[in-house]
């Protein structure tokens, strides 16, 4: 399948900012399930900084903008050829040891409810446990936009029983790590039709023999040809496609549009 992505992030400031620096993980890497045909990232008035592949195999690129500016636009366009690998990440070059992904973070800390959830997988084979936990998280948190914020923790989302893909991923990661399964957060794109106001996210769990396997608990499935994988991290903050900081200026208004479509060959 060939997916076309158009992802635009606009920042508008009340007062001019003196300068701005961003760290991007907005470029997909090639693996068995995805091949980048063409891809372009641009930042209005931006100066391109260093570019490298990090230990997780993700392309990192930094940008800076010299102020004063009142608005900045980050535009991502590209085409990726994808195939269905049943969620298994193959041919992705990375060097970070999987044991690193057993560490928890404030967003993925397992409270007693999450530990109880993890305990349900006790005695299961890792692959079975991963599927089971993903299913349980799917049922435990109802997809409800607006019920949570970016800073909502896995424990809070589970208690509220509502959330979005970020919360599903965090809860699954927290439970998996507690069950001794290395787990990480993945940000990317999903062919969902129409224009969305956010990119997508899911979790990857590490199963001996198979490697990393994606689980999209929000949609109750494993990533297939409709998915494009961008970057991974310990949690949403660590895997964020854009991390940025502005000097000076006042309040910031953020506007995001994501359109993923299937193109004809």
């Amino acid at each position, binding site marked *: 399948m060939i997916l076309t992505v158009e992802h635009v992030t606009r920042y508008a400031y009340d007062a001019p900012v003196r300068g701005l*620096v961003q*760290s991007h993980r907005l470029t997909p890497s090639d693996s068995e399930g995805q091949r980048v045909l063409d891809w372009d990232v641009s930042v209005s008035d931006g100066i391109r*900084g260093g570019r490298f592949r990090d230990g997780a195999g993700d392309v990192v690129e*930094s940008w800076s903008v010299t102020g004063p500016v009142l608005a900045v636009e980050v535009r991502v366009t590209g085409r990726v050829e994808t195939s269905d690998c049943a969620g298994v990440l193959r041919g992705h070059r990375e060097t970070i040891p999987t*044991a690193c992904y057993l560490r928890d973070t404030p967003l993925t800390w397992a409270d007693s409810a999450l530990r109880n959830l993890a305990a349900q997988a006790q005695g299961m084979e890792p692959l079975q446990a991963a599927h089971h936990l993903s299913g349980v998280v799917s049922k435990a948190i109802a997809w409800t936009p607006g019920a949570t914020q970016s800073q909502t923790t896995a424990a809070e989302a589970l208690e509220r029983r509502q959330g979005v893909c970020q919360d599903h991923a965090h809860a699954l990661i927290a439970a998996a790590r507690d069950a001794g399964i290395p787990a990480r957060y993945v940000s990317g794109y999903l062919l969902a039709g129409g224009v969305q106001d956010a990119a997508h996210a899911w979790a990857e769990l590490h199963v001996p023999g198979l490697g990393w396997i994606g689980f999209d608990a929000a949609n109750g499935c494993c990533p297939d040809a409709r998915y494009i994988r961008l970057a991974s991290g*310990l949690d949403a*903050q660590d895997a964020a496609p854009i991390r940025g*900081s502005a000097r000076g200026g006042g309040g910031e208004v953020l506007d995001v549009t994501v359109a993923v479509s299937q193109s004809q060959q």
Partner: protein
Amino acid sequence: MTTCFNEMFDDGAVRAPYARLEDWTRSLPAGLRHMKQAEAEALFRRIGITFAVYGEGGDPDRLIPFDMFPRVFTANEWARLDRGIRQRARALNAFLVDVYGRGEIIRAGKIPAHLVYRNAAFEKAVVGIVPPKGVYSHIVGIDIVRTGRDEFFVLEDNCRTPSGVSYMLENREIMMRMFPDLFRENRIEPVDSYPALLRRTLASVAPLKCEGEPTVVLLTPGHFNSAYYEHSFLADMMGVELVEGQDLFVEGEFVWMRTTEGPRRVDVIYRRIDDAFIDPLCFRPDSMLGIAGLMDVYRSGGVNICSCPGAGVADDKAVYTFVPEMIRFYLGEEPILNNVPTWQCALQDDLKYVLAHLGDLVVKEVHGSGGYGMLVGPKSTADQIERFRARIEENPAKYIAQPTLALSATPTFVEDGIAPRHVDLRPYCLVGDRIELVPGGLTRVALTEGSLVVNSSQGGGVKDTWVLAE
């Protein structure tokens, strides 16, 4: 407390390195001594060398007590320490390059993977990075204690931003000003080349993209930091800019410093800020002390950061246990300096032993420093021990334990004359394109009679440290 090794008097006789000091103390009657002590304090005040103690409040400009009685090593003693310290600094750096690379020492089963990869100080953001000259830790502070004529132990390693070197330099400066005769009568190795060597070391690890003479800066968290005096002192002595996060910014592929003549590119940052605060785009997003985008510039070879982010995984107290193993593994040598035997409370058998012998042991937090959060068994009440036991049981992995060592003592001026007090030693090893070590270090002294805690934050003082020339 059992008897300890007295560095001046051995078997009732004065040891050779202290021989001339005996005459000196005789020539120093109490009246003159008090005058000299007051003079020393006035000098320290005038220089502005003060030390604010974390979490204690009170006078932020408190002086660290300075004891005028020098601590002396012979050339032979130092030669062994020198070799041992350099060996350790090499092994620690080899370990850092390895664990952020292929992790051979873990594959070989010499160190458990979880101790490294699940360690909070292991930065996955720098996996795969080999810094300039293959050096992660450029200033290695190694805390050493002595328990006998030939017995030295390493208590801990400090691979991030060890502080205290300004005291080594100032203590010498003040001793030379007050007692010039002593320095004529004794042949004492100088330490004053340290700032120039530090500058040289930092310049020798300039990043890939640096052409020409590298620009070095010292990054401080600011004047409220307890070591701010040292930051400004070292910047001054090295002739480099002292900057705070707000003085630097990232543009394009580089880090720039604001100056009155416009932005100037920065190549090497000697940072005295913890990893967590150094770049809000990579680590803690709420940090106001760091430079946004710094880590991307570092990771793409546009700047070097000393010590490199992630260096802390080598000086963790649980990893410490394995340093002798690192020396054998990477260097194929036997350790010249020994570790103190250490029990890991994370291990079931060790924990059982520790809990059964709390009264005899020193228990420390794995990530603690500054003498906080530790238990000195023989010096604690039954009640203190029981409260500490509860803390260990709650989270055993947070603690390690060591036997209470009979730290050596050196003569120290006290209220009513001269008395032995326990000491330790922190030399500062510089690692760049070569390894440099000035003969000396910071001697810390526990001023309270019988006390084994030398930390300046716990009432310890400092002494000038002499290494005698052959």
